[in-house]
C-alpha cells in the first residue's frame, strides 16, 4: 500500500483455475514488480504460488484478514523449485502464528434456552447485541437450523448482525435457508455449506453453541 508498484487482487470465493487466471491477466497486462493475490482455499494458495514461481517471482505466503495472501516479488534470486519445495508444504492456515484467539459461535435456534419462548427470543437478541464485547476474538458467527431466520428479511437483528459482520465473518447454512425457502430473503452473512462449517470448527480455538 502507498506503493503504486504493488498490485493486489482479491480472489476470495474463486475456485481453481480462477485465481491463477486473474494473476496471469494482471502479469500479462502490466508485469508488476510486486503483486499480492488474496485467496481463501489451499488449492488456490498452491496453484497461485506455483504460477508466480513459473513467472520468476519470489513467492511468500502470509495470513491476511479472512484470507491468505500470496505475494510475488521480482528479484534475482527468484525460483520456482525453491518456492514450491520450501514454502508451500507448511502453509496450513491453522499453523500460522497469531495473537488473538478464534471464537466460533454457533447459533442453532432463533431463541436462547428452553422454557418460555418469548423470553428465549428476548435473551437471544440481548446475547447477539452483547456479542460485540468479544471484540476481535469473535471470529465466526454461524447460523444453522431455526437460527438462519435471524439473518433474513424482517429479522429484528439485521442491524446488530451487520455491525458484527464488520469485524467477524457471518456464515449462514445454505441447506437450512433452502429448507425454509428463505434463500432469496437472506440479508446478512455468507451462505455456506457443512464442509466450511466443520473446517471452521476445526480451526477455531473455541466453539460456543447457543
Amino acid at each position, binding site marked *: 500500500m502507498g506503493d503504486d508498484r504493488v498490485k493486489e487482487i482479491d480472489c476470495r470465493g474463486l475456485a481453481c483455475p480462477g485465481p491463477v*487466471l486473474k494473476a496471469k491477466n494482471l502479469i500479462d497486462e502490466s508485469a508488476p514488480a510486486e503483486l499480492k493475490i488474496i485467496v481463501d482455499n489451499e*488449492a488456490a494458495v498452491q496453484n497461485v504460488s506455483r504460477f508466480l514461481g513459473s513467472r520468476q517471482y519470489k513467492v511468500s505466503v502470509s495470513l491476511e484478514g479472512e484470507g491468505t495472501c500470496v505475494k510475488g516479488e521480482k528479484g534475482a534470486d527468484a525460483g520456482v523449485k525453491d518456492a514450491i519445495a520450501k514454502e508451500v508444504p507448511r502453509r496450513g492456515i491453522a499453523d500460522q502464528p497469531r495473537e488473538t484467539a478464534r471464537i466460533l459461535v454457533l447459533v442453532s435456534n432463533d431463541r436462547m434456552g428452553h422454557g418460555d419462548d418469548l423470553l428465549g427470543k428476548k435473551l437471544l437478541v440481548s446475547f447477539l447485541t452483547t456479542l460485540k464485547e468479544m471484540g476481535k476474538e469473535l471470529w465466526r458467527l454461524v447460523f444453522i437450523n431455526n437460527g438462519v431466520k435471524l439473518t433474513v428479511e424482517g429479522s429484528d437483528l439485521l442491524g446488530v448482525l451487520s455491525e458484527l459482520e464488520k469485524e467477524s465473518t457471518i456464515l449462514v447454512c445454505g441447506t437450512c435457508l433452502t429448507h425454509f425457502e428463505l434463500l432469496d430473503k437472506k440479508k446478512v452473512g455468507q451462505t455456506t455449506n457443512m464442509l466450511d462449517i466443520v473446517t471452521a470448527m476445526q480451526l477455531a480455538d473455541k466453539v460456543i453453541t447457543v
Partner: protein
Amino acid sequence: MDDPYSFGQIAAANALSDIYAMGGVPKTAMNLVAFPVKDMEISVLRSIIEGGLVKMREAGVVLVGGHSIEDSELKYGLSVTGIIHPSRVLVKRNIRPGDRLVLTKPLGTGIINTAIKGGLASTESIEKAVYSMAELNKTAAEVMERYPVNACTDITGFGFLGHLAEMVIGSGRSVKVFSASAPVLPDTISLASMGLVPAGAFNNKKFRIHMMDISPEVDPVLIDVLFDPQTSGGLLISVPEAHAPGLLASLRDAGIADAAVVGEVTEGPEEKITVE
C-alpha cells in the same frame, strides 16, 4: 466438456469401467438423465444419448431403458449390469509381493480439464484427453483376461495414487511407484507447473499423503499429477512379475500404446507407498 457427443461417450465409458476393472463383461445398461429442458436445446440431449449409445454398442451392451428427470443441472450416466464367474472376480486388495503394476491410460485429464476452463489448453492436449477419456477399458480387460492377474482397479476421482492406496490398504503389502514411468497426457506437466491443478488433486493428496514415502528427487509437480482426479481413467493391473512383459506387449499390440509398468508390490506389512 463442451461437445455433447463426446460428453455422452465419456460418461458411458466411465460408467462401464467398473465392470471391466472387476474382470467382468457388461451386458445391459439403463440411461440416467437429468436435463434442464427450459435452458438447453433438446438437440444437446440427443447428441449426449447418441454418444452414450455408440459406446454401449462398442461394449456389446443392450440399452434396456432408462430414467430421466428435469433438473437445473445437466447430468448423464449409466447404470450397468454385467456378468462374471464368481471365482474370477478381481478385487483391489489381492496384490502379491513381486507383482508388477501396469497402468493402461495416461494421467492428467483433471489438469487438462482445468486448463480448458481457463482457455489455456492446446488443441493437441484437448484431443488426446478426450480420446483417452472416451476410450473403453474393454480391450484392456480382454487382454488382461488371458493373464493370471492378481488384482485390478480403475483410476477415477481419487487419482492414480489415491486408487493405488485403495489397493494397498488391507492388503498387508507395500508398493513402490516408478514415477518417471507413469504415462502422462501431453502438456500436463507444464500446465500443472503453472498452477492449473484442480482442487480435487490437493484433496486427494491431503487424504492419502500419510501413507506415502516420497523421494525428494521427485518433482512435486509430478506428485500432483499422480494425485490428479481422472475422468474415465485406465485400469491399474497387478500381475506377477513373470507375466508383466507379456501383458504389456499384448496391451500394446492391442493398440493400448500408453500402457506402462508403473510400480511393483513389495513385502508388507506396513502398507506404505514409496514414490521414487
